[in-house]
């Protein structure tokens, strides 16, 4: 991958993940990313034709829940770790 391509996708992925790499770290991160992506690319050597993907080892009896209500947390427990609360609502940022 060319340098510009890598920087391009880094910017895109930063927006997808809402995690930013500082300008001072950028060069270092790109170098590491390049190596790691090359490492990932070794999988291209494997012949996966006709192989079904395995996302989770199979469960013999999938577990589901009965439709019976159970009291959850008290408001104080639910909001215990929220730093900004107004009248029981969690204060959040603007949505536009």
């Amino acid at each position, binding site marked *: 991958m060319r340098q510009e391509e890598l920087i391009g996708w880094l910017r895109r992925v930063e927006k997808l993940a809402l995690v930013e790499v500082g300008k001072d770290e950028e060069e270092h991160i790109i170098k590491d990313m390049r190596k790691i992506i090359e490492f990932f690319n070794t999988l291209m050597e494997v012949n996966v034709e006709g192989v079904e993907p395995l996302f989770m080892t199979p469960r013999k009896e999938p577990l589901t829940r009965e439709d019976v209500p159970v009291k959850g947390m008290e408001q104080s427990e639910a909001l215990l770790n929220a730093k900004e609360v107004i009248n029981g609502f969690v204060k959040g940022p603007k*949505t536009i």
Partner: protein
Amino acid sequence: MDREVLTLSGLRAKLAENPRFLYEYIEFIYDVIDAIEGKVKAFITLRGKDDVLREADRVVDKLIEGRAGRLAGALLAVKDNIVTKGLRTTCASKILSDFIPPYNATVVERILREDAIIIGKTNMDEFAMGSTTENSAFFPTRNPWDLSRVPGGSSGGSAAAVSALEATAALGTDTGGSVRAPAAFTATVGLKPTYGLVSRYGLIAYASSMDQVGPIGRTVTDVSIILDVISGRDVKDATSAHSRGGYCEAAVEPFKVLHPKLRVAVIEELVVEGVEKPVKHSFLRTLRKLESNGIEVVWLSMPISRYSLPAYYIIAMAEASSNLARYDGIRYGFHESVEGRSWYEVYTNVRTRGFGKEVKRRILLGSFVLSAGYYDEYYLRASKVRKIVRDSLLAILREHDAVISPTMPVLPPKLGERIADPLKLYAIDINTVLANLAGVPAISIPSDIVNDLPVAVQLIGNEFDEVSLVALARVVEGIINLAPLVPPLVRRYV
């Protein structure tokens, strides 16, 4: 401190005769902690001795009345990515540095129900991402066998605490080797159960399709006692499964469950490539000991194992990027004032400042392998390789009692040695990720001391057959005949 109470099984026996011995035991543990914790730094949160002594009153009463649980007397260290109600749980991350969970993980409920006392929360690689515990946002933990070296990771704090006699045993978590690696580097026993055997409810997720809670102890028997308590179906975890139970019995009387003609397989790719000479030679010596004790050793090749490491990292990073999306500081954690600011700005600031470097790297790469246009090439492909790995490993396990390998390809590295280059760090997981990808159980048992440093072997067993795995591990442990091992740092306390 008597050698006999170094193990949980020994402690239980002693307490059965003399319940009040528990107070002496607690004093002893805290004496050791006072002496060496400043150097080892295994704990992020350590409970005060007075709190623990108060809790011990209840346990002593139950012991006297003869109605104590199976873990009565045990002081357990719990890795700080397992939620404990009312007790700070941080995942060794700035983004959760003040998080107080309002609920207990199921494994915590189960150990408390059996009268264990939780002594503290242990240090780890941030969000379990790492193999040396150097990625903790707070401080690194040091290997009690050599304080200039790492204890392994990501459950480094748990393994160090057990190794340095700061706890009876511990709970760690294993996604790519994070229980077995630190167990190997600290001469303790660490078990990763079959995926689903132990509930993940309350385990702060890293890679959901591979995470498992695993016990770390000084002997195979100790580890099996804890496994009996924590394993089994949980209605709060849809991926959890029934447990056969009987693991402790299997460890105590292994030949009741094993047939006499034992046969283990060595996958040559896990020994021949990238394994340091001293480790390889030690491993070969161990194999000879097994053979001279009647265990057949078969060498075979599993070519796909070469690709297990990239497949593991693609899947783990993808799932991690998803599991860590929730950390935005709004409901819990590292917070920034929201007034007048857009959510985009607030979330980005919180996540950029709250997560450490390795975590951010994995989130970015994980998002990349799931993104449109790359999903097929990376995540989907890795999942197909995973299928091949699992099928190949299960095929081998159908013909052999276990796969045996060195747990780690290197001796415990010095601090700073592996951390600068990510690929160098990832490379030491080469032998452990196989079991996580395939969902099968694996255990690390100390096998040797080389240059005064611990070396271990790993046994990989068939899924949901921990009974056989634990029995075989006990047999191997018996043949090796070193356990329980005590590092020089704390030898004078025994």
